[in-house]
């Protein structure tokens, strides 16, 4: 009883299984949604043809991937260390917050803060950086962008409620 559960645990940890499952779900969604597309004069050339054809082949390949994940033993360790994973998640969350902040507080303020926060997050792996380094990094980046984009190329950037 324990062994099949353990084996299933190993299988569902495999990326091929999840990629395959995603492919199957995506194919089902595409097939369903494209069923509502209008009928075309030459039915075999309608708007649903290509998405459905691609979805069908993806579904078949997805099943192959799932089957391969069942057959093959776990061959190499692709685990990310806990520290790196937490840094990755922190960077991703910061990036998403940056995305929302650009429109809210303005591009330059959010960029100045974002580039500093990123250094603070990754410095655990790459060595602690001084406050001066962080300030210099943010200033150089914002100045460079201001000169190239605002002055030279005259591209407007979101200003938000601040600068």
């Amino acid at each position: 009883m324990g062994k099949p559960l353990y084996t299933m645990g190993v299988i569902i940890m495999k990326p091929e299984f999840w990629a395959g499952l995603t492919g199957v779900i995506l194919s089902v969604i595409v097939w369903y949604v494209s069923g509502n597309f209008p009928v075309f004069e030459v039915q075999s050339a309608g708007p649903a043809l290509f998405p459905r054809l691609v979805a069908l082949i993806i579904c078949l390949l997805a099943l192959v991937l799932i089957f391969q994940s069942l057959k093959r033993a776990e061959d190499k360790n692709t685990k990310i260390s806990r520290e790196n994973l937490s840094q990755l998640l922190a960077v991703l969350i910061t990036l998403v917050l940056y995305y929302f902040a650009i429109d809210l507080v303005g591009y330059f303020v959010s960029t100045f803060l974002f580039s500093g926060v990123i250094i603070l997050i990754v410095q655990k792996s790459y060595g602690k950086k001084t406050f001066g380094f962080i300030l210099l990094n943010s200033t150089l980046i914002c100045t460079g962008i201001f000169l190239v984009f605002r002055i030279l190329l005259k591209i407007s950037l979101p200003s938000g409620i601040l600068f």
Partner: protein
Amino acid sequence: MDAVITAITTVFHPVNILMMSAGVVIGTIFGAVPGLTATLAIALLSPLSFNMDPIPALLLLLSIYAGGMYGGAITAITIHTPGAPANAATMIDGYALTQQGRGGVAIGISCVAGAIGGIISCIIMILFSPLLAKFALMFSPPEYFAVAIFGLTAVFAVSGKSLTKGAYAMLFGLLISTVGYDPILPLPRFHFGSLSLSKGIPFLPAVIGFFAFAEVFRLITEHNPMEDEKEVIKVGRITPSWEEIKSTFKVTYRSGIIGTLIGILPGAGGTIAAYVSYADAKSSANHPELMGKGSLEGVAAPESGNNAVSGGAMIPMLTLGIPGDSVTAVLLGALVVQGIQPGPLLFKEHIDIVYPVFAGMILSNLIMIPLGLLMVKPVSLIATIKRPFLISFLLVFGVIGAYTGANSLFDVGVAIVFGVIGFLMERYEFPTAPTVLALILGPLVENSLRQSLIISDGSPLIFLTRPISAIFLGLTILVVSLIVFRWRKKVPAEMDN
């Protein structure tokens, strides 16, 4: 003849010279820094080029392509770290020369050989593109469908270790390309009520996500403290003597031709060209006994080969509108946004742009020689850039690159999402090159498929009854069969081991 003279005077305009010089510098820097690539530079700067006139914009992007390959050689030779996989072959003899105190000359030779290889490929491109474009005028939807499918298949067949994963990645790209307006009817598809999605997935932000953000995520998760301690080695004399250059002529021009021919093939990029050129040089070199131990010919051959890929890869992209690798896919995206549709009609409707671009590609390779030699020491220092700075630089410039294309934060969101997807794909060995190509070729594939079926009143036999289409579909089946056959031979051998 007037067009040629106009093209030459156009490229010598100060703005265009400045753009080519800037492109070579940027490409060299991006090529030299591990983690950055010329493709990334082109993807990041393409949105900027929308605000410029087409000729300076294209010259900037194409010069980045020229400088990018050379940049990777600098770090391959000096710190035993190729800037790109295509420079790994250069590292064999290049680093050996550094250890002998002749690293500077090795870099100088790589610069000169790379420029010569690039020029050879440009000449071949100039001679053959108009001929191929004339031939391509005979193409109709079935031929375009067959050639596009062949191109996509060739790319996924050579990308990555698994045929299934390569095909899956390619089809994923094709599926994403169906988001947005139907190419024939005015019907938005898979937009789920979103106005932004109804315009489709924007190509350049997706590419920025795949290359810039995914690379950042990789740098964070694969941090190796040993990588941080690269010191800059003194390189000595950089400018090669005339005798040194002459001694590498034979392998340089042979590799230039090899690289160009390999560049024409979809999916076969700089890495294959570099290794094939190196292998050819081992037998054709003036001093084959020195190969692998510190031979200038061992540096010249792969650098000429990988730089020559640029001109070769441009041939199918310009004449058929079908890119053969990620770089030309991104260039295609940049051209389309400039309102220039590559294909056989390019040579009729935009000859005023084509000839200056041809001339500019040759000139940028020539500019690369003095600039490249001057940049060796600064680039060697830049290549040891601290990772936290590189990470914050890539994220910030990735965001602004994604934003400036359409002044849209939605595009930034697309870049972030594709960054996550690209990171997961690379991590679990799903190649991203087929996805990128499929994303740009998807509309062409769908349009040509459906138009062909409309012409034939729904019969798929049209693809077999037209000779060119039948040949390319046959080649597609042949490529897949060869790869499957090779894979089946490999799996039993691995199981025996």
